[in-house]
């Protein structure tokens, strides 16, 4: 699959709602079998972008292909090949698990529906709930059902819009295990999320803010490209130190992390100079790599500042 053509390739995709640009000239390429993370603050255009790929919305301008088909003219050919999971649980709460799956299987015109649904119920561990109404499932199981429903027709691309929001850690772990095994089978996933640990699990990721693509690449690339330098401070009474650090020259962020404070800035020299004045033995200072969250916050600050 190494030389296969990209699953998603879009150029300058733009969409605005009543004069407000929600996605601004977005260009992106995603390769087969890749798990691609989509990050960004609420309202950054992630959902709109995913909806344009799935054919729910028409882009105002730009062009692109999804699974080799034109997203503007051939959404009818794309739909049978993708699995879309909306942000909100969007199966029928008043149908049972099995009835929901049967319905989706028929919508996708799957041959030997009964066997496919049985297998899916079994594989996704839904057997216990098969005859339970979907509305009575817990958040984690609802998500699992929604994922099952969009896997029935063996899609080649999964578009998952904040699939793990409000789901407990165990269910999230199971979910990611599924995504990894699907990726191994060659299924591509585009996943939007607010969780940094999930962002780090993605092969590549993109960060969107207010319609603009600010950065993309692997997690390591994103961090190193940002040029953000971070120091970790530990010691007693850190809450007293924090207000002292914030006004210092070169200090852009001060974030508490458990029993440490992360102090970051782009200008390493200036940062260390400022911090030297506080190195009086009361605190322990350590040089660390910036994490994704710090990089993203700093990207947001830069954008709002400039």
């Amino acid at each position, binding site marked *: 699959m190494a030389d296969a053509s990209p699953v998603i390739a879009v150029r300058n995709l733009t969409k605005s709602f009543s004069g407000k640009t929600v996605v601004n000239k977005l260009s992106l390429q995603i390769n087969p079998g890749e798990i691609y993370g989509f990050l960004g603050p609420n309202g950054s255009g992630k959902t709109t972008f995913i909806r344009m790929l799935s*054919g*729910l919305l*028409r882009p105002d301008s730009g062009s692109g292909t999804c699974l080799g088909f034109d997203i503007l003219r051939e959404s009818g050919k794309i739909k*049978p090949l993708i699995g879309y999971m909306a942000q909100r649980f*969007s199966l*029928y709460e008043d149908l049972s698990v099995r009835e929901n799956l049967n319905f989706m299987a028929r*919508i*996708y015109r799957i041959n030997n529906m009964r066997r496919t649904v049985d297998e899916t119920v079994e594989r996704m561990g839904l057997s216990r709930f098969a005859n339970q109404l979907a509305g009575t499932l817990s958040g984690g199981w609802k998500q699992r059902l929604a994922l099952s429903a969009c896997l029935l027709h063996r899609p080649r691309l999964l578009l998952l819009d904040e699939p793990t929001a409000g789901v407990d850690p165990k269910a999230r772990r199971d979910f990611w295990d599924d995504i990894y095994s699907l990726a191994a089978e060659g299924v591509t996933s585009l996943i939007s999320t607010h969780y940094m640990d999930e962002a780090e699990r993605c092969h590549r990721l993109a960060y969107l803010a207010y319609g603009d693509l600010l950065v993309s690449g692997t997690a390591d690339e994103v961090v190193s490209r940002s040029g953000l330098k971070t120091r970790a401070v530990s010691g007693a009474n850190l809450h007293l130190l924090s207000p002292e650090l914030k006004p210092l020259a070169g200090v852009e962020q001060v974030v508490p992390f458990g029993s440490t404070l992360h102090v970051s800035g782009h200008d390493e020299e200036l940062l260390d100079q400022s911090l030297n004045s506080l190195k009086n033995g009361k605190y322990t200072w350590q040089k660390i790599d910036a994490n994704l969250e710090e990089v993203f916050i700093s990207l947001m600050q830069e954008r709002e500042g400039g």
Partner: protein
Amino acid sequence: MGFGGYFSFNRFLAVISKEFVQMRRDRVTFAMMIGIPILQMIIFGFAINSDPKHLPTVVLAGDHSVFSRTIIAAMQNSDYFKVISTAATEEEAAMLVETGQVQFVLTIPEQFSRHLIRGENPSLLLTADATDPAATSNALSAFRIVAERALARDLDGPLSHLRRGSPPVDVIIHPRFNPEGITQYNIVPGLMGVVLTMTLVIITALAITRERERGTMENLLSTPVKPFEVMIGKIIPYIIVGYVQMGVILLASYFLFKVPIIGNLFLLLGVSLLFIAANLGVGLTFSTLARNQLQAVQMAFFFFLPSILLSGFMFPFRGMPVWAQHIGEILPLTHYLRIVRGIILKGNTFDQILPNLWPITLFLVISLTIGLKRYRSTLD
């Protein structure tokens, strides 16, 4: 309550002001709160009249004497009757009653004046479309007095002896289609149209709004399913529900209320499809306008209220002022009621219901076009 049990005026004010803010945000509910009372006031205050006047009447005059003219003039003056034609044949007159275009036919027999002058007590025949007893009863009881008083004025001089003793004419009243004046005969078949309007408009509006409100529409639209397949698939079950409702009402009319079913039931079932579809079109249009299920119900109610009050279901159609009749003529229920009563009580044939069929069809085309256009535009 056991603890914290004092009344806080500020907390109470907070709830009140929050309630008003929410009321203002939900424009549709707000409009309905104002709109429905106004609608009801106009309908009940101005449109409804349980003593209908100016009922269309045709006269079959076999005798063109001064007495005939007196009777006709007196009928006009009584305000209950509006003579629209005097030159009809017997067949024409019968057809006009059957199709509901006139309420009364007055038959003045040949040689009426001669028999009258001779004191032979001639008869006057007033045939009424008594489907709705409320529409005709006042006019019928007025007619006897109107005719006698009118003649009394003419019978003077040498004829004054005819005024004494028994009345000079024998007024025969022939209430057709519902001779015993049983209100249920009129109401029960009419109920079919009312039930279909109420449930189909509300159910369709709800079914599609619910799908959008719960977010399941988004899921559907991301699948290969076509919008047309979704819509038809959602509507057909409710058409079947509509027919089940009709069946229940027909069975109850026949066995419970003993309503005589004279006409062709298959014709009724067939033309009902148009009426059902017209209501579904309204429901579909509402579902594209409503943002949530509550609004959908409110809109359905806004359509249902004039339908039930201005269609001739509850109150005689001819009792309403002309402007209200015009509004009534737009509503599919008005025409459907005439069709149902025409077929069940009068045995109307297809030709006879045709004048009421095309307005329903027109309404269907318009409502479905608006509904479909809006339904499509909401996808993007």
